């Protein structure tokens, strides 16, 4: 029973403090899931990110289902997924009924402008930790640079970029 509560609590926090979309939450998810609870290693966390990028759906929901399932089977996946979505549902339901024209409030607007800068910083933080966890030799460095290039400048779809990286990986790490 304890594990369900722990999963619920952790993913409720992640859901409650997620601003700015999937990538911005990576540092929080990583700290909670890999470092604090040890539910997966840092490397497994990156594998899970790759799977999230290749499957439909929000990264936070994918992570919740994946981690919950790994820790406590289908029920664990259900508890974690429910928890990560709950803050969305509650907060938006409240705002829907009580707030009209939310953004016209000057202070709220300024608050979110400041938040947006931090969000980019958090995505950059996710980049830093994933980079150091994943690039251990020159071949890996080449794949990282190549992926950056085709996604940024050639507008390659992330799914395609990961498939290409997988093929490159087989070639470079053969034997």
């Amino acid at each position, binding site marked *: 029973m304890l594990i369900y509560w722990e999963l619920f609590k952790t993913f409720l926090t992640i859901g409650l*403090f997620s601003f700015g*979309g999937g990538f911005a939450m990576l540092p929080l998810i990583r700290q909670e899931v890999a470092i604090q609870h040890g539910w997966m290693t840092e490397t497994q966390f990156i594998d899970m990110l790759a799977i999230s990028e290749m499957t439909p*759906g929000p990264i936070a*929901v994918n992570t919740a289902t994946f981690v919950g*399932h790994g820790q406590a089977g289908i029920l664990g996946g259900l508890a974690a997924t429910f928890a990560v*979505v709950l803050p969305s549902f509650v907060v938006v339901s409240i705002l829907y009924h009580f707030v009209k024209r939310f953004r016209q409030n000057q202070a709220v607007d300024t608050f979110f402008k400041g938040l947006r800068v*931090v969000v980019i910083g958090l995505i950059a933080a996710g980049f830093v930790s994933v980079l150091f966890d994943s690039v251990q030799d020159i071949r890996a460095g080449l794949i990282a640079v190549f992926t950056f290039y085709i996604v940024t400048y050639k507008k390659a779809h992330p799914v395609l970029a990961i498939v290409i990286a997988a093929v490159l*990986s087989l070639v470079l790490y053969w034997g």
Partner: protein
Amino acid sequence: MLWQLFKTFFLIGAFTFGGGVAMIPIIEKEVVDNHKWLSQEEFLDALAISQSSPGVLAANMSTYIGHRLMGFPGAVVSCLGAVLPSFLIITVIATFFMNFRDHPVAEKLFMGIRPAVAGLIGSAVFVMTRRMQMNLIKALTIIGVAILVGWFGMNPILFLIGGGVVSVLYDKMKPNKTEKKSE
């Protein structure tokens, strides 16, 4: 109608890769153009509130639109529809992936996939910073957060709240300067 809502958001959830931001144009197409459930204006309101609320963007959008169309039951059904595909797909993958992960070929594949994930995130940072009007304070904030959170493992929640609060305080202290932290 409830079924229609569920089906629409289920399909959106099942066919959008890359999470929230990728979903916005697809939700717009379905909800505004195809079903004509919301006007363009209402859609932008929904988007503004969804982006300002904590939580998963897809869940926020579906909850708001569900409320708007069919009240509480509509919100439940839409949100469920948006999240269910992800839950089902990952449950299936989690069941099988655990067996296949230790296979030597899988390990070789992931050796290259991991740095690719770094490349993807790096690209997101690059594109976002290029799009915003950069100044020294913003650049230092981004680099500072990246190092303190990414390298030293400081708590990201602290920075989120701090960033918002500092921005409001800064704005209050300089009421006559109009070009502070804009976009």
